[in-house]
Every structure is written in C-alpha cells, then in structure tokens.
C-alpha cells in the first residue's frame, strides 16, 4: 500500500531547458513558421485536388464521393496475393460500415473541406495546434487505410507542431487569437470579462493554489 502511495504520489517532472527552448520559446517561432507553412501548403494542395482537381472527389456533375468510395473499396479488399491494405479488422469494419451506409457522399466533402481549412489555418497560423491535430488525425486515418505516401512525414511534423502549439502560431494569427480567446485553463482577454473575471487592462484573478 505504501509502495502504491509512493508510486502515485504527486510529483511534477520538469522539462529540460532545451525542450522548453524548442517548444515554448518565441525565438524558435521562425522555425515553427516554416514547418507550419510546409504542412499547411501540403494540406491545401491535397484538399484543392479533392475539391477542384481533374480527379476530384466532390463538386462533380454526377454523384459526389465516388473517388472516396473507390479508395475505401480498395482499402477493405483482400488481394489474391500479398497482405490486405488494412491490418486492423476493427478499422476495416468501420470503413465497410461507412461504405454500406453510403457515407462517402458526405464524408468526401468533410475530408476535402477539412484539408483545405487545415491548410489555410496552418498557413496563416490560426488555431495552429488544433489545425495540426486535425491534420494528424487525417494522416493517421489514411495510414490505417493502408496509404503510406507522404502521410508518415506529415504526421510526425503535425505532432511536433501540436507539441509546439504555443509558439507555432506566434508568427501568425495566433499571436492575437491566443491572448484574446485564451485556453480552457486560462481564459483570454475577450473571454475573462464574460466569465466574470478581471477585464482587459486589469490584473488577472489569482490562481487557486
């Protein structure tokens, strides 16, 4: 019992200086801006092809989402030789469920718009952490469906940007958005007065200890 208490006792393990330098120091903002721009450009390009490209998924004269339907059908299939694209049965079941319910009609819009929005948000640095997280989620799903392509590299980059969310958008709209809106644990200048806290120009309320 004492061992359990000692193991689960509250301790705060501090990050080393270089980790804080990389993920929380505004001097690293230019580096994060380059990473953010590269990732955003890739997403915008991918979304653009799905929306307006010659092999687009949506915005077609006929049914929408047939491109996605073909992609899902290839992903859930079992080839005569070699291993299937999807390794996890639960993910194959999920895609099969989506196919059976013809979800590709609306899901293709969700993916195309999601990619364009994530790309633009990363480029302008607005809600950078959330945009990178959305991108990482899409990368993760593409990889689960058996598509390697650029997804592993973009996924790693997105995860790094999620870790560096505080400074990744410093050279961007987040420079204003984060102080204005704040976070769930630290309301910003616009939200604080609405919650009955200190208004702009006034010192923030003391934190509970």
């Amino acid at each position: 019992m004492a061992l359990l208490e000692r193991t689960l006792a509250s301790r705060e393990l501090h990050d080393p200086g270089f980790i804080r330098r990389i993920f929380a120091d505004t001097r690293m903002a230019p580096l994060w801006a380059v990473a953010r721009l590269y990732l955003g450009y890739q997403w915008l390009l991918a979304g653009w092809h799905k929306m307006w490209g010659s092999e687009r998924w949506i915005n077609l004269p006929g049914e929408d989402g047939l491109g996605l339907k073909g992609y899902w059908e290839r992903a859930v299939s079992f080839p005569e030789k070699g291993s299937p694209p999807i390794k996890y049965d639960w993910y194959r079941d999920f895609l099969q469920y989506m196919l059976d319910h013809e979800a590709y009609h609306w899901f293709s819009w969700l993916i195309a718009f999601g990619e364009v929005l994530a790309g633009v948000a990363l480029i302008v640095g607005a809600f950078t952490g959330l945009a990178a997280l959305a991108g990482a989620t899409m990368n993760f799903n593409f990889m689960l469906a058996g598509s390697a392509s650029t997804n592993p590299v973009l996924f790693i980059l997105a995860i790094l940007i999620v870790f560096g969310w505080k400074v990744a958008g410093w050279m961007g709209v987040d420079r204003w958005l984060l102080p204005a809106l704040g976070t769930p644990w630290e309301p910003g200048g616009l939200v604080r007065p609405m919650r009955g806290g200190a208004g702009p120009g006034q010192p923030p309320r003391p934190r509970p200890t």
Partner: protein
Amino acid sequence: MKLALLGAGVLAWLGVAIIAVLVVNAWSDGNLVWPFFPIAAAVVVAWLIGEWVTERVFLSGNSEEVRHGSA
C-alpha cells in the same frame, strides 16, 4: 485608430489566405517547390504588419503579454 490598425492586421492575414489559395490554384498541377515562396513571402509581410500593429494596439500601455501554459 486602434480599430483601424487592428483591421489592417486582420486584412494582412486575410491576404495571406487569399494568396495561398490563388497560388495553389495557379500551380496545383504538381507538388512544386516554387509556390511555397510567394506564400512564405506573404506570411513574412503579414507578420511584419502584425508586429507593427501589435506594438501600437496591444503593447502601447501597460498591457501584459499572455503566456499560455506558463507555470
């Protein structure tokens, strides 16, 4: 005056979004390197405008810099 400055900053970043979309539309044939540069240039210009606006709108008084996630 501050509202106008803030509007200029917002417009600068809106311009980046528009330029990014136009550039991708113009050069979407392949995954090229060149489209990256006009977008990056637009971001740098918008950032400089943003910093200029920040200095005049947010840091002119005794405003504090909010550091989210700080200890």
